[in-house]
């Protein structure tokens, strides 16, 4: 249940060394879109591209392999990818849209397809929604303070940020590595993440993250009928190398553990909002 519905779970990585060179994990997201673009399954994809400020993501529409590759890697800050979901079908002119997003963005997408209040002619143009696992996200200022104040590193010298193995990792262009205990990161999390009840993007067509598989590999859940079809075609085209998920360490056990921890903690917080913030008053609960 905490892992959502899925047709299969596998360990995978891209077979394309160009993609793997700068991808966050197994290059699943970029490889999926690159394959789908090639195969005519999508006309392009909304990705979290690199803005003018270091590690500040900006939603962008990638319609070429180069643009997809330029967006590789995780930026641990908010990228409002849904803000382009209508525009991508208008001025960008895409009929078959790919989109990557955190679990909450996948929720926004599916709500938008079922309740398209302000999203005319969008619902049936979503061709491939790739979800990424997500424990929490940070306002940009939070990343700035974590890297520059806590990590004593200039953000513009950073080559990669990663959260894994219980630490926040800062890798610099010159080869230095700084690690922060996750404890210091918690206060910088965006508040909206604390009511989030999804860790592994249950509503994506295909979702992926690093947790569960060795470095350089990714855990992949193939979820919807559409995702199943595209995954099968991508495998047939040789886009991915795979291993059975139960053949790798630490495997789904760790994914399940983390998902359960996240949902339980946030569930508790949601309950506390109903009773502990005032007298005879409650904070609003979005879930009905």
């Amino acid at each position, binding site marked *: 249940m905490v892992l959502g519905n899925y047709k299969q779970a596998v360990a995978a990585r891209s077979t394309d060394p160009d993609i793997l060179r700068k991808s966050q994990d197994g290059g699943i997201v970029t490889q999926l879109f690159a394959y789908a673009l090639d195969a005519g399954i999508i006309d392009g994809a909304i990705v979290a591209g690199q803005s003018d400020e270091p590690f500040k993501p900006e939603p962008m529409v990638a319609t070429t392999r180069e643009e997809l590759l330029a967006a590789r890697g995780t930026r641990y800050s908010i*990228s409002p990818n849904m803000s382009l979901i209508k525009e991508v079908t208008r001025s960008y002119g895409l009929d078959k849209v790919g989109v990557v997003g955190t679990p909450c963005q996948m929720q926004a997408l599916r709500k*938008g397809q079922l309740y398209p209040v302000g999203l005319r002619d969008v619902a049936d143009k979503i061709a491939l929604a790739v979800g990424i696992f997500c424990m929490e996200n940070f306002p940009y200022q939070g990343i700035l303070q974590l890297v520059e104040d806590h990590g004593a590193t200039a953000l513009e010298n950073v080559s990669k940020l990663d959260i894994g193995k219980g630490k926040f990792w800062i890798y610099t262009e010159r080869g230095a590595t700084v690690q922060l205990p996750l404890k210091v990161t918690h206060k910088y999390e965006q508040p*909206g993440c604390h009511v989030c009840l999804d860790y592994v993007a249950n509503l994506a067509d295909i979702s992926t993250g690093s947790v569960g598989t060795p470095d350089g590999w990714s855990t992949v859940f193939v979820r919807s009928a559409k995702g199943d079809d595209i995954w099968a075609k991508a495998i047939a085209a040789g886009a991915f190398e795979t291993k059975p998920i139960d053949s790798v360490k630490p495997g789904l056990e760790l994914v399940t553990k983390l998902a359960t921890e996240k949902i339980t903690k946030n569930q508790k917080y949601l309950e506390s909002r109903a009773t502990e913030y005032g007298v005879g008053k409650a904070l609003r609960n979005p879930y009905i």
Partner: protein
Amino acid sequence: MGILESLKALLFGKHDVGGEKQDQKPADKPADVIVEKKASIIKEPKEEKPVADKITVGHVHMSGCTGCLVSFADNYEGLLTILDKYADLVYCLTLADVRHIPEMDVALVEGSVCIQDHIAVEEIIETRKNAKIVVALGACACYGNITRFCRGGQQNQPQHESYLPIGDLIDVDVYIPGCAPTPQQIRNVCVMAYLLLKGNDEQKALAGAYLTPMMNLAKAGTEACGCDIMTQVINQGLCMGCGSCAAACPVRAITMQYGRPQIERDLCIKCGACYAQCPRSFFSFDVVNQYEGIMEAIDAAMQP
């Protein structure tokens, strides 16, 4: 186990979700089961389709620009399917030659009500009396929208200056916000309203769950503004920066800055789309988890 139970309580426990059957639906069904089940849901009404089972629908035109009706018509052949299989259009000044508001199952009311126009006031009262379900179709009927800015003095009825959302005058059952509401949103509500009135128990439960948030909006009031995004989402610690609100805004009053919506309040026409689109205004796992099945069901229902 505890977490599963508490999740269930969260998902199904808080509200009585319109229908009665909600708590029986286990949260942990595998996807395939759900999909197949939902696919079968729509085949039944489709294959039976006795004409006598159609619902009666009327379009009541108050002070609106006809954009909502045009949007409904923009379902193209889908509109014909709806009129062919699910609904008889018993009243619609633009399309049907009927002068007085008849009895009907569903009234789709477009536009706000000018209280200086006694015919409009009479008609909205009559609509409430004659319709089982009153749907506020579009932002003017729900929230006043652009008509909120009227100050009178225009030709050729300068005395017409006060326009109220229909919910200020009558009880409204369902809101479809948006300026204009989208063809797909209107279509989805039509199919769900049909299932609610004519479906079997399971279909009624699904339709009830789907329509609940739109019924809740109708209960929540007649004022909307981009400010709702601030007061009801950001101020409540719920915004996670997805950007749906910005995408939904018809006048591009919302931009995303540093992961949060920034509302150009002078541009806002008070349509309510941003808040209704926001996944943190309302979100039903019970409904959205079944998105594949529901979308297939609606597609199948729209086959001619």
